[in-house]
């Protein structure tokens, strides 16, 4: 506890100097505590709150590159909602996110169960599984783009030589459904390790006794999975799915590199369309408005999932 100056005076000691008093002030719990939060708070204000505020302001103005905007209210939003390209983007985003997250969940649990077993080079392989998640997406997506190239597709070449496809094989990035499949496949490939590793952590924390008890009760492997593993994984799963949904919804790199939103805007996501309109096209106001559409949607998803987690 800090000693007040009066006590010191009473004890016949000299009054502390300015520095000492400053230190005394600083060491009070409520000052020191806030002092520690301050750097983080500053970072959040500068890098998150300020840009967010700016984009809200941009979205309400007809702000063009090179010419400061006038306030136009909800004009941008009205313009966007009526646009077929934007409507298509909303549809794409939901299809993309729901399918990709579903695949990542199922495959992620499966992969985690495999990694949970004891096998040779366990550590090495567990590490290697993380690779797709660690490599910069723009780079790994370039490799995928080359694999889906219309002229030199490795995927088609292999499948044709294995007799699975008839030449020339599908035009991956040029046909609506194939392009969406390609984009989802790359997203699943990239996001899977994140899922698997976190679910693996969840698996490790399940006490062995439950499995032994279930076995004694006569549960088979499916029964053990269904009644022991899955319920105990639920909180972990809910958090991973929440994170993954946010990441997937806001994906940018994969679409930008693979298809640039094509064919005919059937793979555009919010982020890629916002970039195209705002930065390529110079219409910052509309670009900001498009990217802000993400916000209420993600907020709704987060709200529902957090409630679910809390109830658990």
């Amino acid at each position, binding site marked *: 506890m800090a000693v007040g100056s009066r006590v010191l005076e009473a004890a016949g000691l000299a009054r502390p100097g300015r520095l000492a008093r400053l230190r005394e002030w600083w060491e009070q719990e409520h000052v020191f505590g806030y002092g520690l939060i301050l750097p983080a708070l500053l970072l959040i204000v500068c890098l998150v709150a300020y840009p967010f505020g700016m984009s809200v302001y941009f979205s309400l103005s007809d702000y063009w590159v090179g*010419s400061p905007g006038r306030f136009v209210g909800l004009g941008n939003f009205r313009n966007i909602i009526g646009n077929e390209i934007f409507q298509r983007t909303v549809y794409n985003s939901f299809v993309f996110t729901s399918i990709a997250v579903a695949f990542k969940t199922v495959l992620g649990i499966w992969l985690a169960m495999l990694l949970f077993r004891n096998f040779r080079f366990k550590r090495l392989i567990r590490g290697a599984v993380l690779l797709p998640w660690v490599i910069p997406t723009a780079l790994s997506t370039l490799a995928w783009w080359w694999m889906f190239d219309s002229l030199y597709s490795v995927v088609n070449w292999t499948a044709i030589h294995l007799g699975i496809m008839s030449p020339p094989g599908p035009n991956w990035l040029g046909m609506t459904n194939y392009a969406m499949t390609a984009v989802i496949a790359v997203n699943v490939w990239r996001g899977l390790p994140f899922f698997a590793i976190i679910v693996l952590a969840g698996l490790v924390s399940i006490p062995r006794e439950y499995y032994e008890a279930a076995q004694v009760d006569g549960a088979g492997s499916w029964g053990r999975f269904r009644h022991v593993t899955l319920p105990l994984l639920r909180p972990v799963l809910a958090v991973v799915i929440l994170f993954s949904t946010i990441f997937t919804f806001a994906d940018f790199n994969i679409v930008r590199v693979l298809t640039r939103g094509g064919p005919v805007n059937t793979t555009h996501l919010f982020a890629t369309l916002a970039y195209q309109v705002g930065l390529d096209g110079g*219409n910052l106001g509309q670009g900001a408005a498009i990217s802000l559409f993400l916000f209420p949607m993600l907020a709704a998803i987060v709200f529902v999932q957090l409630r679910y987690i809390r109830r658990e």
Partner: protein
Amino acid sequence: MRATSRREFMRAASGATVGMASWLALGKAPAFAQKRELTFLSWNHFVPASDDELRKQAEAFGKLANCEVRVDTIAHLQLPAKRAAEAQSQSGHDLMLTGSADPFLFEHNLADVGDLIGELGKQYGGWYPFAKESCETASGWKAIPWFWISFPATYNETHFMKAGLQTPKTWAELLHHGKILKKQGNPVGIAISHCADANSTFWSILWCYGGKVLEADGKTPAITSDRTAQVIEWYKELYRDAMEPEVLSWDDASNNRCILAGKCSWIHNPISPYNLALAKKMPIVDEINHHNSPGGPAGIHSAPPINSVAIWKFSKNVQLAKDFLKFLFQKENYDAWIVASNAFNHPPLKNLADHPIWARNPKFAMLPKEAEYAHERGWPAKPSAAIQLVQVNYVLPDMVAKAVNGMPTKRAMAWAEDQIKLAVQGKLREAGA
């Protein structure tokens, strides 16, 4: 001690911020030399030797005018953001590479260069018609056309010889030839996708058939017309009988790969595939040749990339910048620069186009003529933010893609018209006003 006034502080602080920003962006410390300094922001040229020559000339000019000339080059995709930032902060370089709608978007931020245009035009036999379309705004000339990049037809001579065909003079002939060539296993390659080439080629064909996207007023959509319908029908037939579905997924390099792989017989592109084959000593280089961009019922028109240089109004060296540009346009300098770029940089001035580098190589001989057909995107309307939005949203190639995928032509046109209307509307007032 005198207290610093708020204004002084702001000036020093903003100077420091901009200085720091450009320092970070360019990776080198700003030079606060005593000498006058002239700065030029350009792109990393596709032919690096061209930038080396530019820097050499900048140094030579610096010696003549007793100043320091700094040429900064950055990736072309980063230029728009940098340009916007300099306009916003009213500080940065003196000169700046511009293109497409830039002189119009930044009209009120750029210095008038009409005097220089007049002088250079008189000296070198006049500017090609596209110069006016791409740099003269309502308030005067706001940029100097610097160079354009020819966008001719590149074809495989062997494929054409095997089929017993001459090079096509019109798009209709190309369709006819393409059907034969595809049967031979050598399809035509015109991108119908989200890439710059798809835009360039569509504009060319649309103009050749007499179509337009906007009326000359720049506000009234004009895409719905019999002429556009004709163009879409042409594309549909070409797609079905002379091309392969891969064109729906192409990027800007795909057609280059297709012709270099010996598969495609004909593409619409700058001369880069030929130059690449030459540089890499690929055997196919002997089979590749060029001919002029085809024409149509309304004549020959094409939409090559046109690059210009502008001077910011906020520059303290406007006159010096003009002198520098004049220096770059001196015949011996411009000629050396053409040579350094290996014929890639085409002059916008008629007399400078007489350079032997084109006449000497039969595969290049027809290139300078392409300048006569060139227009800036948007023509007959002036370039504008709306046109830029139509471009970056790939509205025109998407209209064609919808049609070749089975959407009735009328509906595809109506869809494009909606998008064009929105682009014009999205621009609620004149840029820079």
